[in-house]
């Protein structure tokens, strides 16, 4: 969302917005602590994505690579994506049975706006891994899946 000098609010439509996110993601993110890409390279509506988060150092998650699935509905980016971990993980913002990320417990999802995007959500989840609540939580065996 962008405001022009003439006072017009320009809204990038969903598909073009997701294409931008894809193109930025393909350029890489500095240290690659988070990553994401389409599940199917020909997914015209850019709905289903694979994501990865590298566990932050100094936490129980250090050295682990967590995989997750991201789903963007037709309402995106008016609403945040749905995220489900496929790698088993023990975290206060993740349903322990399904791996689904609880939107009201991740700051970037709770305070979602049209400009937030997938990248910021994954970074926000990674930040949660460092929180006092989560950093020392005992974790399931590495490589286990939901």
């Amino acid at each position, binding site marked *: 969302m962008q405001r*022009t000098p*003439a006072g*017009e609010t320009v*809204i990038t*439509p969903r598909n073009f917005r997701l294409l931008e996110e*894809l193109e930025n993601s393909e350029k890489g993110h500095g240290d690659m602590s988070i990553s994401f890409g389409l599940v199917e390279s*020909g997914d*015209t509506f850019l709905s289903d994505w694979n994501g990865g988060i590298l566990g932050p150092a100094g936490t129980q998650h250090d050295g682990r690579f967590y995989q997750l699935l991201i789903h963007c509905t037709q309402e995106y980016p008016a609403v945040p994506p749905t995220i489900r971990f496929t790698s088993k993980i023990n975290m206060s913002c993740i349903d322990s049975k399904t791996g689904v990320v609880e939107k009201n417990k991740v700051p970037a999802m709770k305070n979602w706006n049209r400009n937030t995007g997938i990248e910021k959500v994954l970074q926000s989840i990674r930040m949660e891994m460092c929180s006092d609540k989560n950093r020392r939580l005992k974790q399931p065996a590495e490589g286990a899946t939901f």
Partner: protein
Amino acid sequence: MSAGLPRRIIKETQRLVAEPVAGISATPYADNLRYFTVGIEGPEETPYEKGVFQLELFLPADYPMAPPKVRFLTKIYHPNIDKLGRICLDILKDKWSPALQIRTVLLSIQALLSAPNPDDPLDNNVAEVWKNNEEEALKRAREFTKSFATPST
């Protein structure tokens, strides 16, 4: 809804509706006047003949200093169009000029359907087939047109 929409865009839209280009339709969405649904008929004597291809087009905030964003929503077998419908066309990138318009962009895309350029490919797999076995490439393009671009009447 259209508060502050540049006069240039209003003019272009009016002309697209009043004097449509043969074989091309472009209609803005009521809730976003910078966002258009586009239909392009496959040119005659090409493997896209009889197909109607749906595209989407968006005029970013810096249009016309920056080019429109446009891509195919209908699957198409073409060396300069990738699996996500993105189009390799110079005027959508470095050859863009503010003197060009939505109309000229859509005409160029229609022309690209008549003149695929496998030497400047966006989809390498398609381009390889196009260069090594044009007959097979044309056959696949016709099959795609039949499967994905044929209007249900």
